[in-house]
């Protein structure tokens, strides 16, 4: 048992460090959603073979291993270079294209995506279909060699700036839920598409609503069979990157620092037994997540594929974020409501995190869905009773809200 790289891993890490040392500082950013610099940085990565480490070389990848990707990500994180803007395109859209697009399409679309020249987005969720993704209602009607799309998507990151998107739509309302879906990719500049940013609880807008009004897509941009869209969507979802344990915002280190800087009854706050107990709980969870991650990395290093076990990282991370943020505000006491960065300890990091935490607990699968995944896919418990699998979609109850 050791924390060391294998000789091959160490060699790769050395290479990566040299690369980052040469180029990294110039592209540092604190806004991971920004496109500023991102495109240029992506091209440099692509040239050096780091843009898509696990992709086969024929698609412009490095033909590397999962553990190499982990090593690269670890190192890149030190430079604050993690641009989220290409994550959806490279992590989800391209792998779907690999499985279902023609050679000509791959030739056309993969390289520009890899080099950050074209941005992709994913059009899946709808207002009435979140956890229950297969319940989408956006309609796709065939019209000769084209499809006509009408409906609404939601929670699409970068929809307003993306060049292309992958789209799941319903082509048959009489088939059972999972059988009537068809999958496309489309030009986001097509006429009839309207994007509206959604203001989140934090006041920021990281997502869009997307409205489709008679948007036309050529049939050759269909991926998979007519009515086979669910199978394609599962390919996309399987490629969601291994969730990270850290949901963002203050973690143990920060709450410990806060408890050292504040006082309770004239003593540093961390001397108080109640505070100590909380700190210990979070430390243990934090360490547990860290070393669980090490175990997953070890498994990757031994050639295994990431499994649903990683769901625990996302779940534990999101719940910890909520608790730590809220308790940090309690420690700050009557000043805990203050969000002015100059007036609030640690530049209001706890308050920011408090408002973002509910987003973490919902985005990328609610806590409830994560627990279902663990129970069913990891522990092998039986699925819930399903009443929505075998009836025509249009006959499914949708409630008074619709």
């Amino acid at each position, binding site marked *: 048992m050791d924390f060391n790289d294998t000789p091959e891993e160490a060699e790769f890490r050395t290479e990566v460090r040299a690369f980052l040392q040469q180029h990294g500082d110039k592209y540092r950013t604190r806004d991971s959603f920004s496109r500023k610099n991102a495109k240029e940085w992506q091209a440099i990565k692509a040239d050096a073979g780091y843009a898509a480490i696990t992709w086969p070389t024929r698609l412009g990848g490095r033909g590397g291993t999962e553990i190499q990707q982990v090593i690269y990500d670890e190192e890149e994180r030190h430079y604050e270079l993690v641009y989220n803007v290409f994550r959806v395109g490279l992590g989800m859209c391209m792998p779907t294209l690999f499985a279902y697009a023609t050679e000509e399409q791959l030739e056309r679309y993969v390289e520009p995506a890899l080099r950050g020249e074209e941005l992709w987005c994913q059009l899946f969720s709808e207002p009435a279909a979140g956890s229950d993704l297969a319940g989408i209602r956006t309609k796709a009607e065939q019209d000769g060699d084209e499809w006509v799309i009408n409906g609404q998507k939601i929670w699409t990151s970068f929809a307003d700036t993306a060049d292309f998107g992958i789209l799941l739509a319903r082509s048959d309302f009489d088939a059972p839920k999972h059988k009537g879906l068809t999958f496309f990719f489309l030009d986001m500049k097509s006429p009839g598409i309207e994007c509206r940013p959604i203001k989140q609880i934090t006041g920021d807008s990281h997502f869009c609503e997307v409205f489709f009004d008679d948007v036309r897509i050529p049939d050759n941009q269909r991926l998979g069979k007519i009515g086979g869209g669910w199978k394609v969507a599962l390919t996309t979802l399987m490629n969601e990157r291994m969730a990270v344990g850290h949901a963002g915002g203050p973690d143990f280190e920060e709450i410990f620092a806060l408890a050292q800087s504040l006082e309770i009854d004239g003593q540093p706050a961390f001397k108080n037994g109640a505070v100590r107990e909380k700190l210990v709980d979070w430390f243990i969870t934090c360490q547990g997540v860290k070393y669980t991650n090490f175990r997953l990395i070890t498994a990757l290093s031994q050639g295994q594929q990431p499994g649903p076990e990683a769901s625990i990282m996302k779940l534990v991370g999101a719940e910890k974020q909520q608790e730590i943020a809220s308790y940090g505000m309690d420690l*700050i006491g009557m000043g805990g409501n203050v969000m002015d960065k100059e007036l609030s300890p640690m530049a209001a990091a706890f308050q920011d995190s408090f408002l973002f935490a509910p987003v973490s607990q919902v985005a990328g699968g609610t806590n409830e869905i994560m627990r279902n995944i663990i129970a069913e896919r990891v522990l092998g418990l039986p699925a819930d009773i399903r009443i929505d699998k075998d009836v025509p979609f249009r006959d499914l109850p949708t409630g008074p809200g619709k």
Partner: protein
Amino acid sequence: MNFDISEDAKAVANTARDFLREHSPMTAIRRVFDEEIQYDAELWKSMAELGWLGAGIPEKFGGFELGGEVLCVLAEEIGRVLAPVPFSTSVSLATSAICAHGSDAQKCDLLPKMAAGEIIGTFALAEGVGDPSPARIEAVVENGRLNGNKYPVADGSVADFVVIVAHDSAGDIGLYFCDLSASGITSTPIESVDPSRNTVSLSFENVEVEPLGDAWQGWQSVQNILDQAAVILAFEQTGGAQACLEMARDYAIERYAFGRPIGSFQAVKHKLANVYIATELARSNAYYGAWALGENSAELAQAAATAHLSACNAFQLAARENIQTHGGMGITWEADCHMYFRRAKSLGLEIGGSLFWQERLMSQLEQQATG
């Protein structure tokens, strides 16, 4: 045994609920969030006319002397709809400070105008980080002049005056009245977790203030004001928790996933059962607080801490689970969920955080155990 709100108070509560449903829909607080208005002045005026602002003020000072229970149920109804009015500050904290400690002249001057909704008061205790404690107070009054900084002060941007906790040159803690139009005051808006609270930072440079009466007993007087406020706040919080529970329940019935209402899933059911339990326990503890407030019982300190802590738990849990029940919709600005989420946390800090009230409660229990 009659452990229930009195019929009189219930009647007021029912009127208030109907009135607020009609006159304080969530559009009002949205206008505050969008910075169109600072508070609902229209509603405030109506509340004065209905006698609510004078509920805790003696008749001889222009009030209606409706008693503590009425104040409590009004707070509950206001908490339910997040009515954007300076209730917990002006009607609760400032009013009870003046009633308990003001000189007759101050009472005659201020209380009738407060009951009539002509002036708004607030209460300035906090000086940045930390819980209520005499050791935290650096604001000082010397020769009738105040120097210091107070923040956050809720409703500070809509108040006409403020009751200030400061010490004098001898180091004794006292309560002072300060007109916010006095010279030497700089009032700076503060970005708050709950933008509807009109929070400011007040900086005082040689500002003329007058002692609030002359009979305070130092920190004990401050603590007593906080105890009373804690009971009333517990009702406001319980009202908020109840509103969150009902919102979540309604959404869980209406929203379908997998061909069925999400409320038919145990994950949602059991979550909301837990919220119901926390809310009912909080309500029961709040009733105990109302009893102690009404009787001015020796148990007030204990009852107030119990009620407030219980209500903090309930409202924060209810607000969090309400968002989670709403899923993606819950994390949008457009949904009302986040306003309750912000308010729940904000009310849990306004008169000191949970560690402060836990300590207050434990010290009461220790006294009983040893006394």
